[in-house]
């Protein structure tokens, strides 16, 4: 019987399949993962691109698991982080950045609500033991990552509860205590042996810890307020900003006054200004020699408080005096009745940064409280011989203290830390990795040097403009008590946000290369290809035209010379 060729069938020698156009090629396409800006910018080390991809697929729990493989406190960071990821987000150059921080918060909240278990195994009884001192974000993160790496961890804190600054000084309208309790509680239950009311230097010494544990992580934060005076003068009834803040957070009350001036431009100054307003202080001033943050203001000149919080403080009636310093305290007896202000700016003077006061710009501000909020430093208690009279520990980004085997440090207490919660979480994770390396007598994992993909490397012709999803914000006249000011996004809003993501530097299986190759030299695979995408190049036919690389929306394909 004669061979019948069905429609669409063919005989191989008679088709062009026989002719390998791949031999024409002088350059070839390859898949190239680049780091998304959101990933590179995250102080905790989160890869937002990766977990947003899971959200886009509708896999919320997997998204959360990917996230907490790096940062175990997303419900908290989702509320208090200054989100440099969003500042870096490539989409910001197209229309508006992805609402990364709010997606993170959604996942954190959802995990609490649904009771998703942290993807962590309980350590074996026989595993090595590590001690962590300080249950702030740095210590919590270090403890969690050590457990993930298989160690038995004992976590000490001098306070009755874990959380560090998050618990002692962050106002509940920014971080509801129900959320903090739930997330920290769930975290501790992954198998961390938590010992509250244990103070290093009082209840145990560093030497004792070193003897009992294979490695020690210190995350004591900054517990001591910096000295403050104006030319050596201070009022008798001096209240320090951080103490007032802690008092209000713990007790809900602060000493009464009708007007106050807070000195400083950081989170403590701004948080305190807002709680004074809530406590009924009529006039609240913030005096800082820094600038209000805004476009064109270099980071080192701007107030260090989170811009969003500064905006809300202004909305609530706080008066901020930027570029201003105090020349003189005006006292009646030993009580303060006002301050003399002067315009000031930090400037380069002979190669050094100096704060310069401008003569002839003096003004007087009458207030009955002047409250310094000029920063904290490490309380050396119990750690004196590690600190050498410095205000922070000298350690590398892995938390390794020079010459001190087996002792690691991270968070606010590490000199050069970012002084943020996400930075503390990142420090804790890196230190855990360094401890693991130390105990295995190896090197800590190499720093990820994957280059970051710039906006110009994307082909944005394939993305649609779409507005950023907005959360509800409590109106100013209802911001009285501890009710949370910023709302979250709903599940459907979060999905819309995830759809907006460009997937910078990572294939999102859009099919564009498959659709546009004139030579059908891009083949789709059901199984994952070895590079994580679903596509392979058919180099028998690929002519190396470069069209696929040019048209890949997210910059996942590049060309390289061949021969």
């Amino acid at each position: 019987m004669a061979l019948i060729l069905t429609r669409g069938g063919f005989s191989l020698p008679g088709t062009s399949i026989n002719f390998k156009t791949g031999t024409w090629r002088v350059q070839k396409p390859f898949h190239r993962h680049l780091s998304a800006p959101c990933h590179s910018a995250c102080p905790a080390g989160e890869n937002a691109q990766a977990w947003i991809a899971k959200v886009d697929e509708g896999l919320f729990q997997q998204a959360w698991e990917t996230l907490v493989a790096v940062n175990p406190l997303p419900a908290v960071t989702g509320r208090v982080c200054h989100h440099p990821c969003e500042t870096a987000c490539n989409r910001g150059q197209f229309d508006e950045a992805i609402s990364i921080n709010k997606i993170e918060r959604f996942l954190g909240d959802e995990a609490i609500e649904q009771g998703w278990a942290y993807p962590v195994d309980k350590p074996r009884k026989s595993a090595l033991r590590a001690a962590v001192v300080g249950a702030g974000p740095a210590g919590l993160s270090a403890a969690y990552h050590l457990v993930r790496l298989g160690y038995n961890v004992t976590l000490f804190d001098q306070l009755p509860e874990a959380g560090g600054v998050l618990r002692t000084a962050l106002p509940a309208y920014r971080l509801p205590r129900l959320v903090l309790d739930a997330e920290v509680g769930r975290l501790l239950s992954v198998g961390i042996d938590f010992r509250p009311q244990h103070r290093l230097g009082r209840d145990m010494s560093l030497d004792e810890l070193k003897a009992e544990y294979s490695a020690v992580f210190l995350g004591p934060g900054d517990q001591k307020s910096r000295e403050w005076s104006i030319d050596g003068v201070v009022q008798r009834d001096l209240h320090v900003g951080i103490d007032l803040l802690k008092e209000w957070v713990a007790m809900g009350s602060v000493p009464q006054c009708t007007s106050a001036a807070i000195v400083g431009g950081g989170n403590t100054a701004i948080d305190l200004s807002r709680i004074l307003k809530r406590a009924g202080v009529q006039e609240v001033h913030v005096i800082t020699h820094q600038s209000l943050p805004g476009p064109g203001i270099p980071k080192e000149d701007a107030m260090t408080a989170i811009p969003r919080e500064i905006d809300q403080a202004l909305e609530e009636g706080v008066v901020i005096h930027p570029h201003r310093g105090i020349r003189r305290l005006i006292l009646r007896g030993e009580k303060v009745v006002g301050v003399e202000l002067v315009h000031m700016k930090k400037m380069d003077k002979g190669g050094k940064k100096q704060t310069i006061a401008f003569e002839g710009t003096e003004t007087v501000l009458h207030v009955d409280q002047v409250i310094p909020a000029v920063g904290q430093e490490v309380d050396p208690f119990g750690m004196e011989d590690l600190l050498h009279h410095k205000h922070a520990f000298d350690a590398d980004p892995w938390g390794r203290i020079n010459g001190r085997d087996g002792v690691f440090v991270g968070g606010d207490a590490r000199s050069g830390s970012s002084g943020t919660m996400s930075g503390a979480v990142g420090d804790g994770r890196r230190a855990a990795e360094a401890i693991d390396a130390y105990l295995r007598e190896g090197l800590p994992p190499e720093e990820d040097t994957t280059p970051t993909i710039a906006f110009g490397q994307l082909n944005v012709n394939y993305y649609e403009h779409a507005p950023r999803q907005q959360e509800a914000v409590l109106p100013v006249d209802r911001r009285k008590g501890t009710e949370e000011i910023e709302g979250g996004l709903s599940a459907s809003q979060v999905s819309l946000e995830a759809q907006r993501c460009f997937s910078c530097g990572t294939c999102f299986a859009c099919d564009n290369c498959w659709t546009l190759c004139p030579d059908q030299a891009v083949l789709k695979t059901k199984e994952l290809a070895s590079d994580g995408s679903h596509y392979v190049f058919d180099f028998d036919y690929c002519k190396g035209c470069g069209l696929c690389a040019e048209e890949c929306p997210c910059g996942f394909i590049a060309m390289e010379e061949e021969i």
Partner: protein
Amino acid sequence: MTAETVVPISDLRNSQLRFRAMESGHRACLGCGQALAARLVTEAAGPDVMLANATGCLEIFTTPWPESSWRVPWMHSLFENTGALASGMEAALKAQGKSTKVIAMGGDGGTFDIGFQALSGMLERGHNVLYVCYDNEAYMNTGIQRSSSTPHAAMTTTSPPGKESMGKRHLKKDIISIIAAHHIPYAATASVAYPSDLRKKVRRALAIEGPTFLQIHAPCPLGWGHEGDQSIAVARLAVQSGLFPLIELERGRLAGAMPLRDVRPVAEYLKAQQRFRHLFQDAPRAREELEHLQALADHNIEIYGLRGDHPDKLDSEGADTVRRGGARWA
């Protein structure tokens, strides 16, 4: 990183989730717009078709004896008679009581110029054929001679810029209006830069009983003077500038136009191609021709009402928007 799968590549080729009517191994140039267009057309059409293919690049690069890239019945015609050949194929299939669709394909030379009379006859007689013109705006297979489709002021080997003219002196023929004047049920323009829109139009045309027509803008890297990797970018700019409007005509009447929400200056499109290089010299004649081409684009935007008004989408109503998992718009 090189990609590898456990599945042998030859098995993969045979298990792609689309109909490979036009196989790999064809001899088109790197980044050929016409090869891509033909692939998209036939893949959208599916297996139950027969092709009539005029002489030209497509015929040459898909079917060098004794090989062919086609996995569907395919017949090569002369340069000038594709319309007649397709009419005959359709009549024969009809006589056999078969519903197989006939698609006629030709270049712009074969369509606008030399095969026009046969095409006009096919339309007039009402044959149930989709005629696809791959418009690369010159006789490319014989070495870039001007056709009546070559745009005004473009350089070809037979319209060189010089003392007498700045490239082609005459205008690009408005073929789609001429075709539409045959009062056929459906005629449309499409571009390789908008594959979803292109496939949609193929399916729409094939669903109609009667003569239909599709003019596809298909960059030719060699003839237009750009790198092969720029084919889509160039085609996209042709649409976004208004020079190549994407429209649909039903029974001669405008039935749809893809709005342009972010209109690009024509100069951006021209600059990307060597065939318009002479328009960028510092000379009054060059400036005049640049303005002329801009005016032609503005005219298109006006008569087809291309300027969209919603800032929320790109200038394609989402036709070129890609999504995770490949869920394209069409």
